[in-house]
């Protein structure tokens, strides 16, 4: 907790404060022990596990249809993509592929999820740096996307729309029109995002040159997603190991070169535009056909190990299923992007100031339940 009692000073005159587990800038329940010299951070030690919900253990006793729902609660901002990863892994085990229509729907949904996730991130970055208004501007578009999700999937945040073999049901008749309207709105409003934060001198001062992560360190720390791409490390799974027909759509992998908070910020801003571009290519070209491949009622994967990597809004999610041939997985491991990204925090924040720590955490875009699982 935040109220920590006596000022505690180490022998070197350093000042230890505990940020979290409940603190507005930790985006959930992360506990950071920070050694300070004045305002300067000497050392950061993340303490995790305040939201460790034993999803991996739980999944071992659930059937292959049922374990998917829990992954929505891991990285709830990319719930769709998490579900997709699980569905793909099961499909890999069954050696089937989703029908083309389902694949396209999956991509559109995943990109919408990425958009809404990045929008929330943008709002929260503003909030973390002390600007309140971006939060409301970001949620304006996010709510529009949420409405689309709700109409087609039936839920706003934890949709549970992906099932092994395709999607749970067909898209809503209004879907295409609404997506087009929202895309138009989003494209117009990107200008406002830039007006409010991107060009702002205070914002630039807070992020430029802050939280530097070199490409070598990014790889060594296992960083993925915009965090690594901000340092110029190419790691987009959609390009490296395309799944669900990503090889058929055109988009660019955005790479920053600065390695600082501003670079990570710009990568995400540009990624939003790429997501819009991907959806635009597909929204009028959803092929007709089944939305779900036929699967047996009780799915049993053959004995073996199946690993599927997907690109969530925060980086690479790996689903590693070890099957012993039974109706539920023998072991499931989620290689979550945030867990690795968080480990680089200590490296980035050492030598920075408290205000920078907030900026760094904001641009890593942590989702703590994904760290703790």
């Amino acid at each position, binding site marked *: 907790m935040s109220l920590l009692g006596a000022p505690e000073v180490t022998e070197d005159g350093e000042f230890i404060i505990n940020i979290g587990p409940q603190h507005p800038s930790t985006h959930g329940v992360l506990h950071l022990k920070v050694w300070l010299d004045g305002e300067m951070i000497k050392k950061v030690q993340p303490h*995790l*596990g305040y939201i*460790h919900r*034993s999803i*991996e*253990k739980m999944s071992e*006793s659930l059937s292959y249809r049922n374990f998917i729902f829990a992954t929505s609660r891991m990285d709830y901002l990319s719930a769709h993509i998490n579900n997709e990863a699980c569905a793909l892994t099961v499909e*890999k085990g069954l050696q089937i592929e989703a029908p083309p229509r389902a694949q396209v729907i999956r991509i559109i949904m995943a990109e919408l999820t990425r958009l809404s996730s990045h929008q929330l991130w943008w709002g929260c970055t503003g909030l973390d740096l002390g600007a309140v208004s971006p939060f409301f501007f970001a949620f304006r578009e996010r709510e529009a996307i949420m409405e689309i999700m709700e109409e087609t999937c039936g839920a706003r945040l934890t949709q549970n729309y992906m099932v092994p073999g395709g999607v749970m049901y067909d898209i809503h008749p209004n879907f295409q029109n609404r997506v087009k309207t929202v895309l138009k709105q989003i494209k117009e409003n990107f200008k406002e995002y830039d007006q409010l934060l991107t060009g702002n001198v205070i914002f630039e001062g807070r992020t430029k040159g802050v939280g530097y992560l070199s490409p070598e*360190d990014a*790889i*060594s*720390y*296992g960083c*993925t997603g915009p965090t690594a791409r901000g340092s110029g*490390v*190419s*790691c987009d799974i959609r390009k*490296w190991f395309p799944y669900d027909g990503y090889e058929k759509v055109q988009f660019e992998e955005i790479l920053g070169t600065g390695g600082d908070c501003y670079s990570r910020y710009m990568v995400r801003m540009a990624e939003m535009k790429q997501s819009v571009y991907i959806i635009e290519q597909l929204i009028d070209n959803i092929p007709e056909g089944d939305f779900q491949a036929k699967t047996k009622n009780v799915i049993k994967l053959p004995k*073996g*190990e*199946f*690993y599927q*990597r997907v690109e969530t809004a925060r980086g*690479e999610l*790996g689903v*590693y299923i*070890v099957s012993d041939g039974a109706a539920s997985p*023998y*072991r499931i*491991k989620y*290689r979550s992007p945030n*867990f*690795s990204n*968080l*480990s*680089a925090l200590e*490296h980035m924040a050492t030598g920075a100031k408290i205000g920078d720590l907030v900026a760094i955490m904001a641009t890593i875009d942590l989702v703590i339940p994904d760290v*703790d699982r």
Partner: protein
Amino acid sequence: MTNEELKVSVSALYPAITFDETGEFLNAISSVAEFRSVMKTLRHNKELEFDFLFCLTCIDWKTHLMMVYHLMSKTHKHVLVLKVKLDDTKDPQIESVADIWKTAIFHEREVFDLFGVNFKNHPDMRRILLDESWDGFPLRKNYVDENMISI
């Protein structure tokens, strides 16, 4: 490098390593004794250069524990899965690779926390997700917890 070429170049360096190609990736199974030097070679050998450890985990096969390292090379674009069998389930021990890939610092702590594998020479070997006072290793198959309700 394709899986075949990988197999050839790795077994040229370490003949004791056995391979298993049933899955998507090439699986190499190493022994505990050789493990650390294999890992160092995999990371630093110019032809192999596995610089990205993207997954590190453990599987409890009841009789033994299996450490699984998913390695990838960003420069050569190949993937290798290295496995190490730990026979001692009471007090499993293995060398840490935290100095080779920094991401292992967190991942090894997680494996220590949930499986009880002890990593030698790890810079900060503490539980990461659970309380320091937690009893047992939850992801082991023989873990019992009276608070846990099963369907």
